[in-house]
Structures are given as structure tokens and as C-alpha cells.
């Protein structure tokens, strides 16, 4: 129990050391913040957004976040954006900006280069080498990146595509990035991408769920791997603690500072990564699969025996089976709900 407490404390400690926090500097329409504790709060100007929290905009919503390093993130309507962090092998934290659904425009400060964040949608990852670009994440799991200034490298399914200024690339659901194409500044039409993504979903609703399921399993594998590493590292830490008990005075202090503390940071980072991948799967499941489910059940409210609906529900059931088995063990009740500031 003591060890767990130490790790939990370290988890919070490492998060606060390396995490990038932001603040809402402009908001209009419906903007909610899903906090770390699971609370849903109305987002307003001046509200802080911390690592682990999500900005959720309604169909009429829009929010601008300013990060403490001067970078800005504009979250457009009907979008879900999450601020996260992921740890490397040494336990050093890297900021991660996840666009689960909808669209967001990023403008990074020049100074961010030393600590460049990871940009992602549920199915793609983008290495940041540029300063200004927009990301779209569609209902069917597709994504679109459009660069205005600088350069980015978009990766999905083991293929990386590099984009320069005024270039974009589409990544179809469950696919590698396509060929880059020219996008003139200010000429990008998100509504077309949104319609195409909706159309792709309606063309094959069950297929869209299976594409999400592949991503789910990828998240689950990564969470499992970090969990295994975490368990091993915990044992190593236990051995180191025993060794520490046999030391006294300065030798003990030095051993703690030079050996134990870095090992604790590394261990807590691994646990944090387990949660990172579990929560990535959870967000994808909540907002992408959830939207699909609502659309299918309302559209087919009078046709629940239609084969298209039944195929979708079969796929949905499969997805949920894996989700319950592979992801739920890493989730907490607070990920669902804790308290709400309302009467």
C-alpha cells in the first residue's frame, strides 16, 4: 500500500513537473471541460485546462486555448480535444494533444521545439516540425492534416508522410496516409471533409466499427505492454528499496537520489502510459463509437431488423467485448463520473 501511495504521489508529481497547462482565452457557444476527476464543467474564458482534461465543444461551440509556452489551440465546433502526456523510457514526460473528433487548429510557439508535443487523432500521429496547421478527425476514423506554415510528419499504419507549407494529406480509416496535395491558405473546407467522413461511415457502418476496433486493439496492446513493464519495474524498485534499507547516512541519501528516485520516476511514468493508452481508447470509444451508435439507433428506430443495423450492432457488440476485457481493467469510476456542479 505504501509503495502504491508513493507511486501515486510520484505520478501526480511527474505530471505537474512536465505537463503543459493552458487556459481558455476565448469561448463561444457550448464549451465543456471534462476534468481529471470526471467532472463536466462549463468552459469559460480564464478557465485553466490541465493535462488529462478534455475540451468538448457543442455544435455551436468554439474555444481558444493558450498554452503556457505561448502556443495556441483553436478547437472548432462539435469537437473533442484532450490534453495528455506520455512518458519515454526514462520517465520523461512528453505532452500529447489528442483530437478525438472534429477539428482543431494548432499554432506552436517557436520555443516549443525543444519539448515538441505529440499531435494525434485516434488513428494517426503527427510529428511536429512546423508551427501552424489544422487537424480534422472524422466520425469514421479518417483524418486530415493541413499545414499552413512549417512542416509536419504524419504517421499511420507504419507509413510516414511529410508535409510542407500549404500541403495537406488525408488518412482514410484504418489506412496509411495518402499522397500529399496542395491546399491554399484559407481555402480549406472542413465541411467537405466532414460530409465525406459521414458518407464513408454510412456506406459501411459495421466496417467503420471494425476499423475502430483495430485501433482499440492497438491501444490495448500498448497499455498491456506498459502494464507488464510497470510490474517488472515495481519488482526492481522493491529490490532497490531492500538495498536502501541496508544503507546509512550519506550513502543512503546518495543511493536514494541517484538510484531510487530515477527508478521511481521511471515506474510512475510507465503506469501513466498505461492510463494514457487506456484513456485514448476510452475517448475514442466514447465519442466516435458513441456517435455511431446514436446515429444508427435513431436512424433505424423503426427498422431494428434491417440487416445493416444488425450488422452494425454485431460489430458494436464485438468492439464492446474487447473494450470490456482489455481496456476497462485500466479505467476508474471517475473516468465515467465523479460529481457535477449543478443542482
Amino acid at each position, binding site marked *: 500500500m505504501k509503495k502504491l501511495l508513493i507511486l501515486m504521489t510520484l505520478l501526480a508529481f511527474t505530471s505537474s513537473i512536465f505537463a503543459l497547462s493552458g487556459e481558455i482565452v476565448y469561448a463561444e457557444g*457550448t464549451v*465543456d471541460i*471534462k476534468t481529471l476527476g470526471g467532472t*463536466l464543467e462549463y468552459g469559460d474564458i480564464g478557465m485553466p485546462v490541465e493535462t488529462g482534461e478534455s475540451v*468538448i*465543444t*457543442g*455544435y455551436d*461551440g468554439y474555444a481558444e486555448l493558450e498554452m503556457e509556452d505561448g502556443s495556441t489551440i483553436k478547437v472548432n465546433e*462539435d469537437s*473533442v480535444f484532450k490534453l495528455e502526456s506520455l512518458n519515454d523510457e526514462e520517465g520523461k514526460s512528453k505532452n500529447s494533444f489528442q483530437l478525438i473528433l472534429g477539428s482543431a487548429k494548432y499554432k506552436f510557439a517557436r520555443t516549443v521545439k525543444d519539448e515538441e508535443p505529440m499531435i494525434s487523432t485516434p488513428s494517426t500521429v503527427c510529428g511536429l516540425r512546423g508551427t501552424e496547421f489544422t487537424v480534422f478527425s472524422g466520425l469514421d476514423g479518417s483524418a486530415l492534416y493541413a499545414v499552413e506554415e512549417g512542416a509536419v510528419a504524419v504517421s499511420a499504419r507504419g507509413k510516414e508522410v511529410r508535409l510542407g507549407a500549404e500541403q495537406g494529406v488525408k488518412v482514410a480509416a484504418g489506412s496509411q496516409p495518402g499522397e500529399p496535395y496542395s491546399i491554399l491558405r484559407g481555402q480549406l473546407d472542413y465541411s467537405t471533409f466532414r460530409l465525406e467522413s459521414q458518407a464513408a461511415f454510412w456506406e459501411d457502418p459495421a466496417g467503420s466499427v471494425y476499423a475502430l476496433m483495430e485501433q482499440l486493439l492497438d491501444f490495448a496492446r500498448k497499455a498491456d505492454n506498459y502494464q507488464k513493464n510497470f510490474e517488472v519495474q515495481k519488482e526492481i524498485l522493491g529490490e532497490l528499496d531492500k538495498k536502501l534499507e541496508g544503507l546509512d547516512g550519506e550513502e543512503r541519501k546518495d543511493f536514494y537520489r541517484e538510484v531510487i528516485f530515477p527508478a521511481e520516476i521511471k515506474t510512475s511514468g510507465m503506469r501513466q502510459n498505461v492510463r494514457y493508452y487506456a484513456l485514448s481508447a476510452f475517448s475514442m470509444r*466514447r*465519442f466516435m463509437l*458513441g*456517435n455511431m*451508435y*446514436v*446515429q444508427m*439507433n*435513431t*436512424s*433505424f*428506430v*423503426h427498422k*431494428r431488423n434491417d440487416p445493416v443495423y444488425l450488422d452494425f450492432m454485431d460489430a458494436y457488440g464485438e468492439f*464492446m467485448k474487447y473494450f*470490456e476485457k482489455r481496456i*476497462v481493467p485500466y*479505467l476508474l*469510476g471517475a473516468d*465515467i*463520473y*465523479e460529481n*457535477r456542479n*449543478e*443542482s
Partner: protein
Amino acid sequence: MVSCASLGSVKEGDALDVVTLINGGEAKILMEHSRLPFVYRQEILDSDAQLRLLWEGLKDGGFVPGESVLKTFRQVRPGDSSLFSETWEVRTWFDLVIREEDRLAQVVTSQGNLYMILRPVGGRDYGILAFKEGK
């Protein structure tokens, strides 16, 4: 189950009011009554955009329950989560969200049974926490 005194109570008529709103295609008013996180059948909705998808979707899908009769109106019980889903998420939602003053309503309509969970809001009004249409 969390207790929260002095919030008033929901009435049987509130459940029938929800049906009237659905019959009238009043998606916007239904959205205003809905509380997040919201259970729709097996899913937990977590944004206004999702509530809009639900209520506009039912309206666009031509869902009109028609004449309705209230069959059940009672305090929510722990096992009621299975009316919606057996998943961990829905069970957890029931454990953490449901309060003593919340009521489960079962309404019989020409389109089958409707289940909803209502909560008193601000003394006189009601909030919709969960909804399920189907047989």
C-alpha cells in the same frame, strides 16, 4: 446511492411530458432537459453534440411514440442498470450518478416501452438522465 435533500421531486406527469415533447418533435427542449453524462440505451453520452444527435436523430427518424400510459414510476434500484446495459460503464454510471430522488419511469406507447430516469431540478423542473426506447 447519493442523497441530496431539498431538491423537490419529479412527478408522474413529468414522464408523460417527455413523451409529449418527443411526439411534438421538440428536440431543443428535450436537449435542455437532458443532463450529462446521459445514458441512451447502452451508451453514455458526454457532450451536448451527442444529445443533439440523439434528440434530433429520433425526430428525423420519425420516432413518434403517440398515446402513452405510465406503467411504472418509482425510485431507481441498483439492479435497474440491467434495463439499459450490463456493461461496466453503465453499471458504474448507476453507482455514481443515481441519487435517492431520481425516478425510473416506464411508459407504454404504440412504439413499445419507453424507459427514462428523471431527476428534480431547481425545485419545479425535471432533468432527463437516461432514456431508452424499444420493446
